[in-house]
C-alpha cells in the first residue's frame, strides 16, 4: 500500500487493514484456492509445507517437510541459510518473519516465503530497533521496544523520559513505519513501561503492559506517584539493561497487578483502553533481560492473561528497598469484545497439578494452552537464569484443569524456541543429552501424552509452522 503525505494516512491504512483482517480472519476455515492454470475454472487446494527453523552454530536454516509427526530431516546440504533469528513469526501462511534480537542494538530481519519450487526464499528486508516484544496485526508484524528520548525532550534537570518505539513491518509491500509513544506514565501511575506480548484477536490488538518503576524524569514530573520515598535508589547499581542510577525507583511499585492495553484503531494515534486486574501479578515470562508473551487468545477470541507471579522473586534489602509481590501464578481473561477483565474467571495455577509456578505459556488450539513450569517450585523461580524449567503441562481454560505432559525423554536437556500448535496437537522442539539429534515431540492437548515426531539433524531447533506455496 503506497504511503502518501496526507494527514491521517496511517488511519486510512489501518482502516483498510481492518477490512483486510476481517477478510482474512475467515481464512483458517476456507483455504484460498489457486488454480494451476489461470483461467481454469477448477479449484485446487494450495500446496503447503511445514517449515522448520533449525540452527547450526548460531546460524539458522529453513527446511521444509511434509510432516512434523514423523521422519528425519538434515541440514547437511539442505535448507536456506539465513541470518539467525531470535524470534520467528508466521504471518498467516504467507510469510515467515525472522526477527533478530540484539541486546540493545539495531536488528535487521527479513521475511521469507515458499516459492513454487518448494524452496524458501527471502522476500523483504527490514530494520528495527531492539525488540522487547512482537506480534502481528493485520498486514503488519509489529515490534516494540523501550528507549531513552533524545535530549530535546529532557526536563529542567536534564532527565530523559522513556519512549515506546513501534515498528510496523508491512508484510505485503516490504515497507515499514516507525513511530513512538511516551512510555512514562503510560498506565496513569507515573511508572515507565515495557510491553511484553502483542496478541491480535477479534479486530483488536492486546498488549501486556509491564510497569518498570519510575525514572528520574517520572519522579520529577509526577512526585505524587511515589508511594514510598524509601523506594528511591540512593546509589547507582545494576548492570547492562538492568542498570539503574541514584534517584530512580528501579522496580515496579505494583508487582501484584496485571495491565492489558487494548487498541482498536490506529496503534499510534489513540490512547488505548487499559484493563487492570489485581488478582494476578504482571503478565509476562522473564529470563534475564527478555520479556516473554503470556497473553494469548483462544480460538473464540477470548484473551487469556497468564502471570507467573514474578513479584515474589524481588528481594528488598537495606541498600535497596523494593516492593515484593505475593500473588502466585494465575490466569484471568478478557472475553472477546470486552474491555475489562471477566470477574467470573480466575484460576490459581499453583492450586492445580504439581502446584508449581509457571515460566511461559503458548496457545495450542481451541482453549488449550501449553504451560512451561518451574520444576522446583517457587524456590526454583528465585534462581533466575539457573532455574530448571523442564516441566510441561496442558491447561484447559474453560474446564479449568491442568494435565501433566508425559512421555518426554528422560535425558531431556531443554526445549527449543517457540512451539507450534494445530488441531489439538502441540509440536515442541526437544534436545536431549543422550546423543540423539533434536526432535519435535507431538503433545496431545486432550491427554497430555507426548510422542516423538520429526527428528532434525542440526544443533538445535527454533520453531515450526506452515507456509503456503507462492506462485
Amino acid at each position, binding site marked *: 500500500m503506497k*504511503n502518501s*503525505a496526507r494527514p491521517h*494516512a496511517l488511519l486510512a491504512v489501518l482502516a483498510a487493514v481492518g477490512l483486510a483482517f476481517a477478510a482474512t480472519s475467515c481464512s483458517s476455515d476456507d483455504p484460498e484456492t489457486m488454480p494451476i492454470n489461470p483461467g481454469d475454472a477448477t479449484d485446487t487446494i494450495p500446496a503447503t509445507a511445514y517449515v522448520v527453523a533449525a540452527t*547450526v*552454530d*548460531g*546460524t*539458522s*536454516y529453513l527446511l521444509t517437510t511434509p510432516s512434523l509427526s514423523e521422519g528425519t530431516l538434515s*541440514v*547437511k*546440504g539442505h*535448507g536456506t*541459510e539465513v*541470518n*539467525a533469528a*531470535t524470534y520467528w513469526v508466521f504471518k498467516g501462511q504467507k510469510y515467515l518473519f525472522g526477527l*533478530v*534480537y*540484539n*541486546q*540493545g*542494538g539495531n*536488528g*535487521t530481519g527479513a521475511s521469507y516465503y515458499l516459492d513454487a519450487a518448494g*524452496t524458501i526464499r527471502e522476500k523483504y*528486508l527490514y*530494520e528495527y*530497533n531492539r525488540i522487547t516484544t512482537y506480534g502481528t496485526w493485520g498486514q503488519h508484524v509489529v515490534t516494540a521496544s523501550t*528507549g531513552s*528520548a*533524545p*535530549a530535546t525532550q*529532557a526536563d529542567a534537570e*536534564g532527565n530523559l523520559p522513556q*519512549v515506546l*518505539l513501534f515498528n510496523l513491518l508491512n508484510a505485503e509491500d*516490504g*515497507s*515499514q*513505519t*516507525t*513511530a*513512538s509513544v511516551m512510555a512514562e506514565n503510560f498506565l496513569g501511575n507515573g511508572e515507565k513501561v515495557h510491553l511484553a506480548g502483542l496478541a491480535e484477536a477479534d479486530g483488536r490488538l492486546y498488549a501486556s503492559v509491564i510497569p518498570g518503576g519510575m525514572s528520574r524524569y517520572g519522579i520529577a514530573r509526577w512526585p505524587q506517584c511515589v508511594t514510598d520515598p524509601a523506594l528511591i535508589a540512593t546509589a*547507582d547499581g*545494576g*548492570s547492562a539493561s*538492568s*542498570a*539503574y542510577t541514584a534517584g530512580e525507583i528501579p*522496580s515496579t511499585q505494583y508487582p501484584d497487578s496485571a495491565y492489558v492495553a487494548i487498541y482498536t484503531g490506529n496503534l499510534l494515534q489513540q490512547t488505548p483502553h487499559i484493563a487492570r486486574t489485581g488478582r494476578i501479578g504482571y503478565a509476562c515470562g522473564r529470563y*534475564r533481560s527478555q520479556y516473554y508473551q503470556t497473553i494469548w487468545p483462544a480460538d473464540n477470541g477470548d484473551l487469556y492473561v497468564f502471570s507467573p507471579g*514474578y513479584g515474589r522473586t*524481588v528481594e528488598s534489602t537495606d541498600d535497596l528497598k523494593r516492593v515484593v509481590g505475593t500473588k502466585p501464578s494465575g490466569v484471568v481473561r478478557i472475553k472477546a469484545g470486552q474491555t475489562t477483565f471477566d470477574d467470573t474467571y480466575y484460576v490459581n495455577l499453583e492450586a492445580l497439578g504439581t502446584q508449581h509456578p509457571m515460566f511461559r505459556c503458548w496457545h495450542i488450539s481451541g482453549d488449550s494452552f501449553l504451560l512451561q513450569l518451574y520444576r522446583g517450585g517457587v524456590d526454583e523461580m528465585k*534462581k533466575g*537464569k539457573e532455574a530448571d524449567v523442564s516441566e510441561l503441562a496442558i491447561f484447559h481454560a474453560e474446564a479449568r484443569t491442568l494435565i501433566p505432559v508425559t512421555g518426554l525423554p528422560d535425558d531431556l536437556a531443554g526445549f527449543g524456541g517457540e512451539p507450534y500448535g494445530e488441531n489439538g496437537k502441540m509440536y515442541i522442539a526437544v534436545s536431549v*543429552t*543422550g546423543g540423539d539429534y533434536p526432535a519435535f515431540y507431538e503433545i496431545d492437548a486432550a491427554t497430555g501424552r507426548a510422542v516423538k515426531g520429526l527428528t532434525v*539433524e542440526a*544443533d538445535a531447533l527454533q520453531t515450526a509452522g506452515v507456509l503456503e506455496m507462492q506462485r
Partner: protein
Amino acid sequence: MNRLHPLLSLLLALPAMSAEPALPADSLRPMEQTTLGEATVTTTRRDRVRRSAYSAVVADTRALQHRNLSLGQTLGTLPGLRLRQSGGVGSDSHLLIDGFGGRHVRIFVDGVPHEGSGMAMSLNNLPVDYAERVEVYKGVVPVTFGADAIGGVINVVTAQDPRPFALDASYTYGSFNTHKGHLRLLRRTGGGWTFALTAFQNYSDNDYRIDNWVRTFTVNDDGSVTRHPVDQSDVRHVRRFNDTFHNEAITARAGLTGTSWADRLWVTMTASQFYKEIQTGVYQDIVFGQKHRHGYSLSPAIDYSKRRIGGVLDVSLHADYTRNLTTNVDTAARYYNWLGDYYVTATQGEQSYQHAQQRNDAWNATAGLVWRPAHWHEVSLNHVYSAFRRTSRDYIGATATLTDYTIPKRSAKHITGLAWKVMPSERWNATAFAKHYAQSVRGAVSTSTDGVGNYEERHQTVTTWGLGAALTWFPLDGLQAKASYERACRLPTYDELFGDEDLEAGRTDLRPEHSHNVNLDLAYTRRFGRHSLRAEGTLLYRNTKDFIKRGIGKRGALQYGIYENHGRVRTRGYNLALRYTYGKWLAAGLTYNNTDTRDNEPRYTGGSGQANVHYGDRLPNIPYRYAGGDLTLRWPGILGQGTSLALTYDTSWQHAFPLYWESIGNADTKSYVPEQWSHNVALTLGLGQGRWTFTLQCDNLTDARLYDNFSLQKPGRALYVKARVSL
C-alpha cells in the same frame, strides 16, 4: 595436502645457481647504501632469525619505508601471514598466522608485550617507519617472548640505531583526505646518554565509495516515518561519510647506553590518542552517521639490560604501566541511510544508546636471564607478568552526569619459560624449552532473576604448562632444514572474557586452548653472478583442543561476535616463498599459502552426546588459500650518481571462503566472501644515495571490490604520494 599449483612446480624446477649477489637478496632499497654498516647490522639480525631453529620470517621494514604502508600491511606479504582489514585507515584489523586469527597471535614491541596499549598504538595503526624490522615466529615460540600464543608471535623491532645522530621524517598525502606524518630523532652523546623522540600521526576521512543498496524513507505529517521497501539488486556506489579516523602518538626516551654497569638503562614515556568514527555495524547494511569512539593512552616504561656479567650472564628487565581511556559514543537520535540522509528518531542511539567510558589499566613486567657457561650452549630463563584491570562508567541524562565506575574486571598472567640451547657447530643447533602459565581472572556477575543486584564476584585461576624443542641443520651449502615442536597453550584474552563493551559480548568461564604445533621448514639459497634465488617452504601441523573460536550470532541470534570453547581443531598446511633478484635491477617474489583447518570434534559440545553436524568441515570464515607476488624494476643512476628510480608491482589473491560451515544448508543460499584479486603499483625516486625518496603509489589499481571480511568493503582505487628523508 593439496597438489602444488602447477606454476609453482615449474618455478621450483629452475636450475641451481651459485656465486655471490651484489645486494642482500630481498632488499628493496633503491640505492646502494653508503651507510653500509647499518644495513649490514640489519641483515645480520634478520639472518640470525633465519638461521635459528624456529620457523620464523622477517619483514625488513627498512626496505619498505619509502612506501605508504602500515606495519600490518608489511606483514601481510610474508608467507603464511594474512591481514584482514574491515575498511580503510584505522579500521579493525586482524593478522592471521597460518590461519590462526588475531587472538592467537601475540604482539611484542622490542620483546615486551604490546597488549593493552590501546587502539591508537595497535599494529595496523603504526606506520611502516615505526619499525626497523618485524619478526614473526610461527607456532613454536622462543621463551624470550613470554606469551601464550598458539598461532605465533610478532615482534616489532624499533630502530636500533648505533649512530650518534639520526633523523627520519616522512609525510604522506593521498586519497580520501589521508595525511600521515612520521618523525624520529636520535641523539647519543659521548658520555653514553641517549635521547630519542618518535612521533607519528595518521589522518583519513576514509570517504571511499562502497557498493550497497540504499534504504529510503519519508517522514509523514503525523510524525511517523515510513521506510520504503529495499530492492537489494539496486546496488549503488555510495560514499562513506562517518569513517574519519586519526591517531597521534609521541614517544620520548632518555637514558644511558653502554656504561660499565648497564648496556641500557632507559626511561620511556609514550602518549597516544585516537578518534574513530564508526560507519557500520558488523554488516555493511547497518549504517551509522554519528557513532564514534575516542580515547587516549599514557605509558611510562623502564628498561635495563646488561650483557656479559662475569662474562657469562645477560640480564634484561622491563616494566611498564599503561593507562588507557576509551569513550564510546552513540547518542544521536537519528537514523541514517547510505545517502547520508537522516531523520530524527524518537529514541537516542543509532545502534544502541551508549555514552560510556572504559578505563583499562595494564601492567607488564619482564625479566630475562641468559647464562652462557660455554660457547656451545646457553640457558635462558624468562618471566613475564601482565595484569589488566578494566572498569567503566556511563554518562547519563541530558546533562551527561557520570555514574560511578562499575566493579572492576581483573586479569593477571604469569608466564615463565626455561630454555636450553646447544650450538656445537655451524652445521646445527637445537633448543629445548618448558613453559609455565598461570592466570587469574576476576569479574562480577549478577545472579538475580532480573539482573539487578546480587552481585557475585567470579574468580577463576587457571594454570597449565607447555614444552617444546627446535632443531636446525645445514646439510649442504645454501640448504637449511628446520624442525620444531611446541605444546602450546593460549589463555583466554581479556576481550574474550570481558568484551570491549560495544560490539562484542564476553564470558568469564572459558578454558585455555592447548595445541600440539609442529613445523618443518626447508630453505634453499643459491647465488651465481648477479642472480640470486631463495626458496623456502614450510609444512605445518596444529592439533588444537578447547579451541576458542569466534562465532557470529551464537547467543540467541545477535549480530555480535562472541567466543566459546568449540572443541578440537586440526590444521594442516604449507606455505611456499620464492625470491629472485638480479643485481641491482630486478627483484621478484612469490608466496603461496594453503591451510586446511578442520573441525575435529565429533560431538556437539555442551555436555551432550549429540553428534556434531559439521564434523570434518573446514572452519568457517577463515581465508584458507591465498597467494601474493611482487616485482620490482630498478634504474640506478637514472638522474646521475646517487639517484635511482624503482617501479614496484604487487598483487594478492585469495580464494573464496564461506561465512558459515561449508557443508550445512543449500549451497545456493549460503553467504561467501568472494574470490579476490588486488593489484598495487608504486614508483619511487631516490636521491642522495637513497636519503631522500619520493613515492607515487596506487593501491587497488583495478578498483576491485575487496572484502577481507564478509560484507565489509575495503577502499577502491587510491593514490598516495610520500616524501621521506633519512639522515
